[in-house]
């Protein structure tokens, strides 16, 4: 048997000739030491995953269109079978395909990825199936109370599946159904509470959801749920800054606190982009700051300075913002 020094020497030679990569070495080492190799997703495997998800979505669309086209003719049992039946079938197919992951080379874990497509069908079709049952039993499925119940069942199913199978698709739908549950429940509470300003309440909820998404994004970064981070940061920033902008309102009903807080919040997000090394914070906060500059200019300066001059000032500020953003991106995030 060759000695360790000889093996290492061979590796050096192979690396010099570019016949072996660092990733291949790590996989070989992990396999030898019984550690499951860390998956290095290639562009091809990403594309395959996206295609599997699109296929799952198309299957769901097929079920939905079939139901919609034949709704009056279909019997209750057929409707339940077509929706909840396919959900259960998709869930078990997903489980069976997902089970094979230990017997295949991680980089080629095709069946595991296919299982995600079936879990997607399950997650998309379950709300329809449950709504059919509730509707048939005489519940008003349009009401916030019943939607709280449906979204609650969906949330529990997804979070339970996540804790058992540790698949990101379940975490994604847990977050989506959790958001639906939060919105339905607060809508339900609000319908018996008529003295609040409804639009303000909607804005504060969007602000809170945005903040929660950002916190989840941060909690999930650099671990198994890391693929969800982009989605969470993106929608979190849109929800948070969109709501904060709306809370500032428009002259003469403007809210000075929110209008003053908005630029501070955007600059804080720009600082965070450098601290967390996340370009998405920089992009969205710059975009929202540009929208804010336009809003403030038209709100306060269009009458005093005149609209054309106000536009020139807004344009100059936007150029300054974009320049600053690009400089920061090149210096700290490249």
């Amino acid at each position, binding site marked *: 048997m060759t000695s360790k020094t000889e093996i290492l020497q061979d590796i050096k030679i192979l690396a010099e000739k570019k016949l072996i990569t660092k990733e291949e070495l790590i996989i070989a080492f992990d396999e030898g030491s019984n550690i499951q190799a860390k998956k290095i997703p290639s562009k091809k495997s990403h594309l395959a995953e996206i295609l599997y998800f699109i296929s799952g979505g198309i299957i769901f669309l097929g079920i939905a269109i079939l139901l919609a086209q034949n709704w009056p003719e279909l019997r209750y049992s057929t409707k339940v079978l077509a929706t909840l039946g396919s959900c259960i079938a998709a869930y078990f197919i997903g489980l069976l395909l997902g089970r094979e992951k230990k017997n295949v080379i991680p980089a080629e874990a095709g069946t595991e990825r296919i299982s995600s497509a079936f879990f997607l069908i399950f997650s998309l079709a379950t*709300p329809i199936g449950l*709504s059919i049952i509730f*509707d048939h039993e005489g519940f*008003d*499925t*349009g*009401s*916030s*109370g*019943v*939607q*709280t119940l*449906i979204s609650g069942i969906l949330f529990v199913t997804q979070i339970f599946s996540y804790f058992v199978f540790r698949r990101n698709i379940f975490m994604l739908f847990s977050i989506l159904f*959790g958001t*639906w549950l*939060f*919105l*339905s*429940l*607060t*809508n*339900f*509470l*609000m*319908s*018996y*509470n*008529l*003295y609040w300003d*409804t639009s303000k309440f909607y804005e504060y*909820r969007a602000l*809170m*959801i945005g*903040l*929660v998404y950002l*916190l*989840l994004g*941060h*909690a999930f*970064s650099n*671990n198994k749920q890391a693929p969800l981070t982009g989605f969470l940061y993106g929608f979190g920033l849109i929800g948070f800054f969109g709501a904060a902008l709306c809370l500032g309102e428009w002259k003469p009903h403007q809210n000075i606190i929110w209008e003053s807080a908005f630029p501070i919040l955007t600059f804080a997000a720009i600082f965070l982009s450098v601290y967390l090394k996340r370009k998405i914070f920089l992009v969205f906060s710059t975009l929202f700051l540009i929208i804010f500059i336009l809003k403030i200019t038209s709100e306060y300066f269009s009458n005093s300075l005149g609209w054309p001059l106000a536009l020139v000032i807004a344009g100059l500020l936007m150029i300054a913002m974009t320049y600053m953003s690009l400089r920061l991106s090149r210096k700290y995030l490249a």
Partner: protein
Amino acid sequence: MDKRKNISLILAVAIPILMIFLIIASIYWPRATAHPKFNFLYLMGENYINNQQYVVQNEKLIFTQKNSENNAKFYIYDTTQNKSTEISFQDAQKLNLNANLKSPDGFEVVSGGNDGGIFPLFFGSTDNYYSRYLKNDHTTLKLNIPHNYNFRFLGWVKS
């Protein structure tokens, strides 16, 4: 997962739960302390032809269309006991009424808000629009009145 990420996760879970509890507290706390003092008169099943058949003038209820059919039912709503009692038109005419929409203690009778969920699953909900509530600047109290689009508030009963 490091400590800071754990805190992020805890906060992400705690914020919506805390918000729900705050909403519940802000609804039920003022409700528990609100005590409307004035009863009101309302009618149901008015035969509405061009104009209202019944109006309050000089604190008294009057019937304006003498030749038309008189099918309306009159009720006094007891706000302390939260229940309605049917009375005859003659008894209703004996009451002194304040026709202002707002009672002297700041309450008014309003229809329910939007009870719809987030997604329009099958049908939108309009159920709560036909529920009636007593509302002031701090709270809303649900009234025990059967759902009826033909409900009409007539006035606050002067003691």
